[in-house]
């Protein structure tokens, strides 16, 4: 039985099952999201998003590590955060409808799964309650990062 189950567990599904972004979502719905996702592999140093660009997709890191960078390539370049396997990024443009607030750079070779706004919109029509769950999980992720940056700002004085 276990072997049979694993045949159906594509890499995307296996990753998505353990991602905080999709916590609380049924396996069926996770499979639907995995089918809609695109997989990309970025070499170390590659820029995935650029600050100021239009943002229309949400990304989940499979195996990899990326840096959230402000002022990329300028003398004021600052790394705001490092994200690892099963973290997500790109949600700020999604919820605010604004350009990317920072750049994302792969700090090592990284597998990234992408869901477009369009794919998420389609998912929401079929699974409205799980769409709400994703929004809740996005809010929880934002809240956690806000807590961290608030503390870092206070420490800087």
């Amino acid at each position, binding site marked *: 039985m276990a072997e049979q189950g694993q045949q159906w567990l594509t890499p995307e599904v296996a990753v998505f099952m353990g991602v905080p972004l999709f916590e609380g979502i049924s396996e069926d719905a996770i499979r639907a999201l995995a089918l809609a996702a695109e997989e990309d592999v970025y070499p170390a140093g590659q820029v995935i998003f650029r600050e100021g660009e239009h943002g229309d997709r949400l990304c989940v890191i499979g195996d990899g590590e990326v840096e959230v960078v402000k002022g990329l390539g300028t003398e004021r370049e600052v790394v705001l955060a490092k994200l690892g396997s099963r973290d997500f990024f790109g949600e700020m443009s999604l919820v605010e409808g604004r350009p990317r607030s920072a750049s994302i750079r792969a700090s090592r070779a990284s597998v990234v799964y992408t869901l477009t706004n369009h794919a998420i919109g389609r998912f929401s029509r079929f699974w409205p309650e799980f769409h709400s769950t994703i929004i809740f999980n996005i809010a929880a992720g934002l809240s956690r990062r806000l807590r961290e940056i608030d503390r870092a700002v206070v420490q*800087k004085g």
Partner: protein
Amino acid sequence: MAETGQVDAQLAMGPLALDQTELFAGMRPEVLQKIAERMAGGAYVEGILVAKEGTPGDCLFVVGQGSVEIIKGLGTPEEKRLSTVGAGGFFGEMSLIENRERSASVRTLEPSIIYALKPEDLQGVAREEPHQCRMILVNIARALSRRLREMDEVFAARSY
């Protein structure tokens, strides 16, 4: 929590005004009417602590009138004001979303009317109007994202 008086949410801030708040933006008046009936309002004088860092938080707050300051390390040498929230804004959602203690203290800057909203206040509405209630979540996510963007900028400006 020190209060100077109870306020009727519908009297001081009717459904139309609720529609002007960041938390309830885009929602239908009849749904807001139901929510307003459940919200408890309080009138506060200047300098009152509405939420205290490190304590459990079971509700979020909507500022009807006045304004508040969000402070980390209140009463310590590291005390620092992170931001202010004015009429129509909200605060206290982080504890609720993360199910954690309050990340900062909140104090009134002037005489203010503030409404508390508990998740259970929304249960009935959530059953009847799931799409409308999802807008509250979207509005919370949007506000968190905007604040994270602002704090990221403050952090970056102080880092080089």
